[in-house]
């Protein structure tokens, strides 16, 4: 079916950009329908929330002033004086959390449905890199308001990097911009948060999405032999995607207005850590693990072992498509399903426990 381009403008554009080809590509894309189709929505949802982050982030840039003496005050100014400043900041914070949540859902559904099977290994690798980078966004962005909780969270977080043998101290100084968490750390995190991480993210995102376009939607193994009904991506599935986005957007706006994000107290390097201090929920499972580890395990410090374990865990997670030997032949591997479920349960239990503790 050849769509005819109606207006002259479109023809003009088509001659230069080749909309016709793009149109045909879009026409070709189909989404298979089955019991697990619902999980297809979460990647796009994460992308949508990322777009919200970019827009609100750029808006905040217009007023935010990095620096130990100005950061907290400028956020206060945004919240109190700038019109709708509280809303924009609140959306930025809430959306970050929602985005990380949908990313977790997307990642675990991909893992458990084994969508990383050949030929989608690189999609998985680029996706897990995006995962680490998004967590990096969460970590670096958290410090920017320069409040007490953020100050100590950053101290602890960077110190964990510091306990890693050999390279630790260098990484710590690189992150902190010195030996202590100071204004230098703040400007570093700011640079990472608003320029380095976005640039890397965009590159990875383009790769990730191109891979998905090239390979088409992955279908769980057990449906692969069947002839599945499909739905056109444009416009049918896309409209459903958009509906999903509207729902998240509604949830986001409600959360942001009903529970505006707190600013807290300004960081003071000469004040004790406040009681009941906790990191953001997405780091809570690591925090809780570190809390439970004894000071010494054998001859090693507990936290060194913990930090190493998480580092190795992350590596393992990224390389799963290559470690899962059956996946190489396009088969499902029981062991990896069980592993995925255990990891998921571990994260959930530790998060809830950490939250209640």
């Amino acid at each position, binding site marked *: 079916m050849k769509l005819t381009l109606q207006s002259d403008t479109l023809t003009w554009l088509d001659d230069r950009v080749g909309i016709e080809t793009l149109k045909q590509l879009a026409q070709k894309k189909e989404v298979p329908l089955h019991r697990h189709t619902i999980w297809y929505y979460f990647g796009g949802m994460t992308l949508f929330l990322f777009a919200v982050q970019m827009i609100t982030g750029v808006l905040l840039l217009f007023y935010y002033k990095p620096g130990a003496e100005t950061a907290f005050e400028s956020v206060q100014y945004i919240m109190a004086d700038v019109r709708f400043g509280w809303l924009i900041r609140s959306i930025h914070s809430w959306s970050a959390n929602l985005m990380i949540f949908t990313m977790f859902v997307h990642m675990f559904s991909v893992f458990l449905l084994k969508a990383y099977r050949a030929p989608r290994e690189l999609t998985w690798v680029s996706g897990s890199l995006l995962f680490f980078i998004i967590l990096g966004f969460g970590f670096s962005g958290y410090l920017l308001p320069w409040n007490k909780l953020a100050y*100590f969270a950053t*101290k*602890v977080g960077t*110190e*964990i990097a510091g*306990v890693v043998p050999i390279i630790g101290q*260098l990484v710590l*100084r*690189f992150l*902190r*911009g*010195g*030996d*202590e968490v100071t204004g*230098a750390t703040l400007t570093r995190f700011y640079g990472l948060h608003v320029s380095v991480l976005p640039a890397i993210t965009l590159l990875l995102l383009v790769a990730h999405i191109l891979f998905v376009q090239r390979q088409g939607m992955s279908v769980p193994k057990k449906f692969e032999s069947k002839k599945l009904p499909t739905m056109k991506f444009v416009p049918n599935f896309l409209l459903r995607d958009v509906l999903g986005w509207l729902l998240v957007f509604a949830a986001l706006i409600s959360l942001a207005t009903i529970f505006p994000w707190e600013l807290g107290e300004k960081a003071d*390097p*000469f*004040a*004790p*850590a*406040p*009681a*009941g*201090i906790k990191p953001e929920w997405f780091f809570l499972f690591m*925090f809780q693990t*570190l*809390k439970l*580890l*004894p*000071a*010494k395990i054998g001859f090693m*410090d*507990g*936290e060194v072992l913990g930090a190493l374990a998480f580092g190795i865990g992350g590596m393992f997670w990224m390389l799963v498509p290559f470690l899962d030997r059956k996946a190489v032949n396009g088969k499902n591997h029981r062991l990896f399903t069980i592993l995925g479920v255990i990891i998921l349960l571990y994260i959930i239990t530790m998060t809830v426990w950490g939250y209640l503790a």
Partner: protein
Amino acid sequence: MKEVVRLSADIHEAAGLSDNPKEIVPSSKQRRRFIDSLLLTSFSATFASIFYPIIKFLIPPQVVEASQASVVAGKLSELKANTGKIFKFGTKPGIIVKKASGEVCAFSATCTHLNCTVQYREDSQEIWCACHNGRYDLNGKNIAGPPPRPLEQFEVKVRGDEIFVSKG
């Protein structure tokens, strides 16, 4: 790499080096290898000279620590018994504690676990770290929770009403 090989082949031709291909084959191969290694070295050198300063730039310069011999941490009369106070020891926080007995002691306030700043707990008469529930006794010894080492202890001297703290 192919590109480079072809490039070096072009250079040969341009220089009129391969007018008699049959005779020159072995030596022309050698020349190619030579030129390749030249190219490779200069590429590496270029990259190294670009990245070396960048990496060095990213590592922050060492701040010379003001090796303060001693600081005034507070006034004896202002510190109630069974309380603690954070003071500045150079760029780092320290903590002085006036025990219930009236004796004063001082430590580095940086938790030996992961760097948080500790505080004095009046209820349990201990030094406490809120971050991961680490606890130290009033000799600075780590007695519970994750801290692996005792707090660094400072020397305390009282002259008149002023409490002087110095590194032991």
